[in-house]
C-alpha cells in the first residue's frame, strides 16, 4: 500500500550494515547503545498508545538487565537464552506491576507507576544477595555465539542489530495489527471502545506487559554490553531521558520515537563538550517541546508534508482552473 516505508527500511538497513566498518570503536559503542535505546523507546511507545504514560519503564528495562546478570552468572546460560528469558521475566514483573496500576488513570497512573518502579529498584538496593545492593552487579559476561566473542564491538553490534530489527519489526506489525488499533481506540475514546465490546483493562495490561517485554530485551542487551549494572542506571533520571526522546519525537506514529531518539542522540554526542551543562540543555529542550511543539518532531514533519501537498494541490487547481478559462 505504501512503497516509501519499505524502501526507507532497506536504505537504513544497508547503512546500518556498513556503518560499523567506517566508524571508530567509540562510534560503534555509541551505535550499540543507540540500537538498544531504539528498542527501549519503541517499547515505551506501546504503552503510550493506550494513553498510559508510565514512569517505571526503565525499571522494567532494569528488570531485564538484572535477570540477565543472574541468569548468566548463576547458570551460565548463553546469550541467546538470557535475552529472551530476561524479556519474559520483565514481562511477568510488568504484569504484576500493572495489575494494581489499572485502577488508576492519567496522572495517577504516572505517579503510581513511579512508586511501584521505585519499590522494585529499592529492592535491588536492599537485597545485596543476590542483587549486589547499591553497587550493583559486576562481571556479567559479554556472551558469545558460534565462538564469536561479543566482547568485540563489531560482532556485538551485529547481534544487537539483528535483535533490534526483529523487535522493531514485531512492534511495527503490532502497531498496525488490530491489537495496535485497539490500543489507539482506547486512547481516543475509552468509553466508546468499551461500548463496542472492548475489555479496556485487558488491553491496557497487554500494552504494558508487551512494552515491559521489549524493555526487558533492551535491558538484557545493555547488561551484556556494560558488564556491570547498578540501580542508578535505572533511576528516574534515566526515565526523564526516555521521556525526552519520546516527547521530542512524538508518539502518534511508529516513527516518532525513533526520530526523537536519533535526533537527541546526535544532540547528545554533539553537546559532549558542554559536559555537566548537558542536562540543562536537555531540560530546556523538553520544556520547549512540551510547550511549543507538543506533537513532537513527527508533528513538524507532518505539517511540512501537508503544506507541501497543499501547495502542490494549489498549483494543480490553478492549472486546471486556467485550463477551464481557456
Amino acid at each position: 500500500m505504501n512503497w516509501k516505508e519499505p524502501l526507507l527500511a532497506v536504505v537504513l538497513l544497508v547503512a546500518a550494515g556498513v556503518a560499523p566498518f567506517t566508524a571508530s570503536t567509540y562510534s560503534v559503542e555509541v551505535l550499540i547503545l543507540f540500537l538498544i535505546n531504539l528498542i527501549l523507546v519503541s517499547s515505551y511507545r506501546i504503552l503510550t498508545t493506550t494513553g498510559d504514560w508510565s514512569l517505571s519503564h526503565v525499571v522494567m528495562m532494569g528488570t531485564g538487565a538484572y535477570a540477565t546478570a543472574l541468569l548468566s552468572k548463576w547458570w551460565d546460560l548463553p546469550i541467546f537464552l538470557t535475552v529472551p528469558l530476561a524479556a519474559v521475566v520483565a514481562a511477568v514483573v510488568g504484569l504484576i506491576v500493572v495489575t494494581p496500576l489499572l485502577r488508576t488513570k492519567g496522572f495517577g497512573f504516572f505517579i503510581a507507576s513511579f512508586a511501584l518502579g521505585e519499590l522494585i529498584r529499592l529492592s535491588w538496593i536492599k537485597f545485596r544477595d543476590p542483587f549486589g545492593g547499591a553497587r550493583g552487579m559486576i562481571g556479567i559476561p559479554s556472551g558469545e555465539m558460534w565462538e564469536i566473542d561479543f566482547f568485540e564491538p563489531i560482532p556485538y553490534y551485529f547481534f544487537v542489530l539483528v535483535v533490534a530489527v526483529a523487535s522493531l519489526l514485531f512492534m511495527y506489525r503490532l502497531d498496525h495489527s488490530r491489537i495496535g488499533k485497539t490500543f489507539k481506540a482506547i486512547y481516543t475514546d475509552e468509553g466508546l471502545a468499551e461500548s463496542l465490546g472492548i475489555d479496556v483493562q485487558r488491553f491496557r495490561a497487554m500494552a504494558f506487559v508487551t512494552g515491559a517485554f521489549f524493555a526487558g530485551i533492551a535491558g538484557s542487551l545493555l547488561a551484556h554490553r556494560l558488564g556491570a549494572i547498578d540501580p542508578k542506571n535505572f533511576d528516574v533520571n534515566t526515565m526523564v531521558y526516555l521521556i525526552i526522546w519520546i516527547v521530542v519525537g512524538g508518539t502518534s506514529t511508529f516513527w516518532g520515537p525513533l526520530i526523537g531518539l536519533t535526533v537527541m542522540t546526535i544532540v547528545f554526542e554533539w553537546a559532549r563538550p558542554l559536559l555537566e551543562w548537558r542536562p540543562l540543555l536537555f531540560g530546556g529542550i523538553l520544556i520547549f517541546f512540551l510547550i511549543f511543539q507538543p506533537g513532537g518532531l513527527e508533528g513538524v514533519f507532518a505539517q511540512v508534508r501537508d503544506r507541501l501537498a497543499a501547495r502542490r494541490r494549489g498549483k494543480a487547481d490553478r492549472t486546471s482552473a486556467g485550463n477551464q478559462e481557456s
Partner: protein
Amino acid sequence: MDILTVRTVTKRFGGLTAVSDVNLDVRDREIHGIIGPNGAGKTTLFNVISGAYAPTSGTVTFNGRTINGKKPHEIAQLGLVRTFQRNAMFPTYSVLENVLLARHLQAKQGLFKAVFASDRKQRAKNLERALEILEFMELIDQKDTLASSMAHGHQRILGIANALAVEPKLIMLDEPVAGMNPTETALVTDHIRRLRDDWGITVVLVEHDMRTVMGTCDRITVLSLGEKLMEGLPGEVASDPRVIEAYLGSDEWDL
C-alpha cells in the same frame, strides 16, 4: 416476548436517589422510548442498563440473562450496544475506518496471531460487512470522509453504524437528535426506524425531545423525578395531563 426487563431498579448516589423503583419491559423488535424532562433520571437508568453503573437494588435482564453487575464491554458482547450523546465515533479516522475499527475491536485473538497471521480472509470479510453497514446507513458516499469533518447529523448516524459493527440485538440510543435541526432529526429518525424494520434490531431511545419520540416509538415510558410516571402508546402519553405537566410545568402557580 420481552428482550429487556428492568425490575424495581433503584440507583442512589450518596443521599440522592436518581432512579427509584423503576420497572421497564422492552419487547423484541420494538422501538421503545424513555422520555422525561431534565433531571428525570433517564441518563442514570440508561447507564444502569448499559453497565456503567451497578444498580443499588433491582435486576436487569437481557435476552434471558441477568446483566446487572456485568461490565459495559461484557454487555456489549452479549448484543446490547449503547451509543453516546456525542463523539460516538473516532474523530481522526475516516468513515470506513471507523466501522472497520469497530469491527476489528470485535476480533478475539491473541497477540501473536494478530502480529504474525495475515488473515486476509477475515479482513476481506470485515471490509465487506463494513461496506454493507455503510450502505445500509446511507453513508457509503462519504466513506472516505474524515469523521470529524462530517455534518452533525451524519456523525450521529456514523455512531449508530459503529454500534452496528458489533452486530447487536438491541441498540440503546442516548438523545440521538439532541441539538439537531428538523431536517437532521428526520434523517436520523428515519434511520432508526429502518434498523428495526429492515434488520430486526430492537431500539431503546432515550430522549428529551417529545416530538422525536412521538413519531418514532411504538411504546413510551415516561420518567419524572426519578420515578416511572407512566407507560403507554405515543397517543396516550401525549395526551396524559401528568406528562404535560412534567414537561411544561403546572399552570397553577401561586406567586
